[in-house]
């Protein structure tokens, strides 16, 4: 997970994007789809394009990406 990879706590991310820390957990578990506004703020925080964080289709597991496995 990108947040853990960057060593950012839920609280720190929540404070940075103006959300509640529980909301970050809901988003990470796929229990809440953020608005475009919040998604853009999260992308801005990580300095990544929004499609690197959110996608209409599930992301491929990192191991598949690294080892070039095909699903």
């Amino acid at each position: 997970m990108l947040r853990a990879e960057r060593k950012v706590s839920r609280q720190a991310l929540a404070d940075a994007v103006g959300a509640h820390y529980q909301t970050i957990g809901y988003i990470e578990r796929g229990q809440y789809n953020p608005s475009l506004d919040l998604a853009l703020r999260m992308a801005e925080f990580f300095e990544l394009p929004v499609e690197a964080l959110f996608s209409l289709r599930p992301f491929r597991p990192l191991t598949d990406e690294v080892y070039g496995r095909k699903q």
Partner: protein
Amino acid sequence: MTITGTTPTPRRARTRYDERMYALMNRREGAPLYATAGRRRAVVVAHVLLTVASLAAVFSALATATVWLSFLPLVLLLPWCMATGVINASTRGLLELRTRVLDERQLAERDRVRALAHRLTTYVLLCAVAGGIVVGELGGLTVGGVVLPVLISALAMHWLMPLWVAGMTAQDEPADEMDE
């Protein structure tokens, strides 16, 4: 967020009261009291019972002019306040904090909770009206002259108010540039 041609609506700044309430509602000291669904349900059931007992004591005290009954709600007030606090803490102040303090997920959650609560209240009022009619017709008991009309009016109002509010606040259809 800024969409081309629009300006974002600024959010009202939090006051010191908002900050204090937000911190209060997000304190974690009582977390073990609401850590599981079972405990949360138990607290809500206790809150319902305490509320019913307090109201029953007030009504009985008024009807019978019994002095000790009028003090019972005061005794029940402390556990009632504690139960209220636990419920508020378990929701992180969902219904207690002002709109400007809540984020978009919490606002959506609050709307969902209110819609469900509204539906449940409609059913309770419907049952009360049906109960009043049944008691009057079958039980031979007379429900006070204005009680039933007031109850039916309250039910109709409660049921239809969201429709009226939705109708009054509906927005104009936006013009499509392609039509112009």
